[in-house]
C-alpha cells in the first residue's frame, strides 16, 4: 500500500499542479489584458481568446499534416526524397490491395447497416411505450471503448476444439443449429464481417438517438394534415417523414463512413490485422511503429485523408448553405 502511495501521489500532484497552473496563467492573462482600454482593447482580447486555440491547431494539426504530405514522398527515415515510390508500392503490393478492398468493404457495409438499423429502431421507438429503457440499453455500447467492445465480442466469437465445451455464444448457436463451429477469426472473409458487427454494435445507438430526435421534431400538424389526406403507413413515411429527416440521415451515414475509414482499435485488438482483416488505419500504424517506415505510413495517411475529402467538401457546403439561410 505504501508503495502504491509513493508511486501515485506524485502522479496526482502533477495533475493538480498542471490544472492549477493552467488556470493561474489564464487568470493572470485575463487580469492584465482586461485593463487595456480604448482602441487596443478589442485586438488584445481577440488575441488572448483565440491565439491559444490557433497555435495548438497550427502546431498539432496543420503543420503536421503538411509534413505528413512531404514525408509521403520520402524514405523510411524521412531524410531523402524518393518521388512517388511509396504510392507506387501501394499499387503494386498485394497486401495493400487486400487492405484497400477491406477498407472499401468497411465504408460500404458499416455506415449503411448502422444508419438503416438506427432508423428502423428510431421509427419503432416512436411507436412504443416506455421507450427510455430500450433506448438507453441500445445506446449504452457507445460509451464502451472499441477495445472493451472487442473483448466483449472475443468471448462471443470464442471457439474451442471439438469435444470441449463451446463457451462462445456464436459457436454454441451454430452448434445448436446443427452446424460446425470453427475458429471464426481465422475464417476469411467472414472474419471481416464479424469485426464489422462489433463496430455496428457500438455505433448503432448514435444513429438511433439522433434519428429518433429528428423524427420527434417533425411538426405534428404536417403529419396530421397528410394523414387526413389519406396518406398512411409506408407512403406517409416515404413522402413526409423521411424527406424531413433526410439531412440527419445523411449526417449519420457520413459519420459512419468517417468512423469506418478510421477503424483501428477493433482490428488491432481482435486480429492485429492478420488473417486478411487488415485495414488502412491499422496498416498505417504498423508501417510507422512496427516497420519503422515513415514514408509508407505517411502515404497511407494521405490516402486516408483523400478518402474523407468528399465528405469534408459536402460538410462545408451544407454549413455554407445553413449559414446563408440564417
Amino acid at each position: 500500500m505504501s508503495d502504491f502511495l509513493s508511486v501515485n501521489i506524485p502522479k496526482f500532484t502533477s495533475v493538480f499542479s498542471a490544472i492549477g497552473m493552467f488556470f493561474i496563467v489564464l487568470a493572470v492573462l485575463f487580469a492584465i489584458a482586461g485593463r487595456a482600454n480604448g482602441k487596443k482593447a478589442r485586438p488584445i482580447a481577440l488575441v488572448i481568446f483565440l491565439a491559444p486555440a490557433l497555435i495548438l491547431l497550427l502546431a498539432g494539426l496543420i503543420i503536421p499534416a503538411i509534413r505528413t504530405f512531404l514525408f509521403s514522398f520520402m524514405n523510411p527515415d524521412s531524410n531523402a526524397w524518393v518521388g512517388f515510390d511509396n504510392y507506387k508500392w501501394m499499387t503494386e503490393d498485394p497486401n495493400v490491395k487486400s487492405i484497400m478492398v477491406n477498407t472499401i468493404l468497411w465504408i460500404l457495409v458499416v455506415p449503411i447497416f448502422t444508419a438503416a438499423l438506427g432508423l428502423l429502431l428510431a421509427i419503432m421507438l416512436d411507436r412504443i411505450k416506455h421507450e427510455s429503457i430500450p433506448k438507453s440499453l441500445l445506446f449504452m455500447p457507445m460509451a464502451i471503448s472499441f477495445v472493451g467492445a472487442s473483448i466483449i465480442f472475443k468471448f462471443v466469437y470464442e471457439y474451442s476444439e471439438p469435444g470441449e465445451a463451446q463457451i462462445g455464444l456464436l459457436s454454441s448457436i451454430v452448434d445448436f443449429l446443427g452446424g460446425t463451429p470453427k475458429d471464426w477469426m481465422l475464417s476469411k472473409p467472414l472474419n471481416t464481417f464479424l469485426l464489422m458487427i462489433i463496430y455496428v454494435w457500438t455505433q448503432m445507438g448514435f444513429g438511433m438517438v439522433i434519428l429518433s430526435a429528428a423524427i420527434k421534431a417533425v411538426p405534428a400538424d404536417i403529419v396530421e394534415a397528410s394523414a387526413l389526406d389519406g396518406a398512411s403507413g409506408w407512403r406517409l413515411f416515404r413522402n413526409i417523414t423521411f424527406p424531413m429527416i433526410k439531412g440527419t440521415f445523411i449526417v449519420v451515414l457520413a459519420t459512419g463512413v468517417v468512423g469506418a475509414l478510421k477503424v483501428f482499435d477493433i482490428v488491432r485488438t481482435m486480429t492485429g490485422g492478420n488473417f486478411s482483416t487488415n485495414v488502412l488505419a491499422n496498416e498505417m500504424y504498423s508501417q510507422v511503429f512496427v516497420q519503422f517506415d515513415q514514408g509508407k505510413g505517411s502515404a497511407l495517411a494521405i490516402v486516408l485523408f483523400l478518402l474523407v475529402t468528399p465528405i469534408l467538401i459536402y460538410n462545408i457546403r451544407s454549413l455554407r448553405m445553413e449559414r446563408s439561410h440564417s
Partner: protein
Amino acid sequence: MSNLKIANHNPGRKLFSSKIATVVVWVTTVIWTIPTLGLLVTSFKADKDILNEPWWVSLFNPHFTLSSYKSVFFGGDTESLSNGVLPYFVNSIVITLPATIFPIVIATMAAYALAWIRFRGSDFIFFFIFALQIVPLQMSLIPLLLLFTGGAHIGSVTVFPALGIAGDFAGIWLPHTMFALPLAIYLLHNFIASLPRDLMEAAHVDGANHFKVFRMIVLPLAVPGIAAIAIFQFLWVWNDLLVALTFASGTEEVAPINSKLASLVGQYGSGYTQLSAGAFITIAVPLIVFFSLQRYFVRGLLAGSVK
C-alpha cells in the same frame, strides 16, 4: 407530446403496428445487451470454470467469486499483470482530467471570440476549424511525435527545441488537447453564438469588456453545453487507443488502462480471467458516466448533428 396523441388517435399514420414495434425493439434490446451481460457473468467466474462451462449455464449453476477482480485490480499471481491494473487505472484518471479540462477551456474561449468578437477573417477561420474536424488523426501522428522527441528544424537551424515530453503525461495531454479542439470549438460556437445578442450589448454598454462578458455572462449560460461536450471528451480520452499507443509508452508509469487491456488480449487460456475482469473495470467508468449523465450526453450528441 402532440405527436404521440395523433399516433394514438390515428392508426392510419402508423408504419408499424405498435405491437410489432414493441416486440422488435425489445428483442433487439435483448440481443444488444447479451454480449455485455456475458462478459459481466464471465468476470465473476473462477479461473478454471471459464473454459469449462458457458456463462449462460453458470447463470443457473451459480458459484461466483470476486477473485478475478481482486487479482486483476491489485495484482498477484500472473506475470503479465504483477501489479494489477490499478496503476493503469490511476494513469487513465491522470491522463483524462487535464485532457478534458484543457481543450474545453481553450475551445470555449475560441468559440466566444469567433462568435462575439467581430474581426476580418472570422468566417474563414470558423470554416477552416470546422473542416479540420474530420481530418484523420493519422495525418498528424508522425510529425507530432517527432516534434516532441526531436524539436523542429529548418535545415540545421532549430526553430523549436525538443519538448522532452514524449512518454510523459504532458506528452499525452497535449495531443489530446490539440485533437479535441476542432469539434469542441464547432459545437461550443453553435451553443455560444445562440446566446441573446441584447444581453451582450447591454453588458458592453454598461462598460464591461470582453473578459468580463465572458466570465459573467457567457460562462454561466454556456454551462449545459460545456458539460455535454466535456462528457464527450472525457469518454473519448478514456476510450482512446491510438493516441495512447503513439504517445505513451506501454509502461506502468504512463499507459492508460484501455491500452493495457488491448495488450492483454494476446494471451490465451489463463488470461481469460484477467481479460474479463480487466475489461469490466475499464468500461465501468464510462458506463457510470453514461448512465448518470445520459441526458447531457444525448444533448451533446444532438448539438453536433441536428440543426
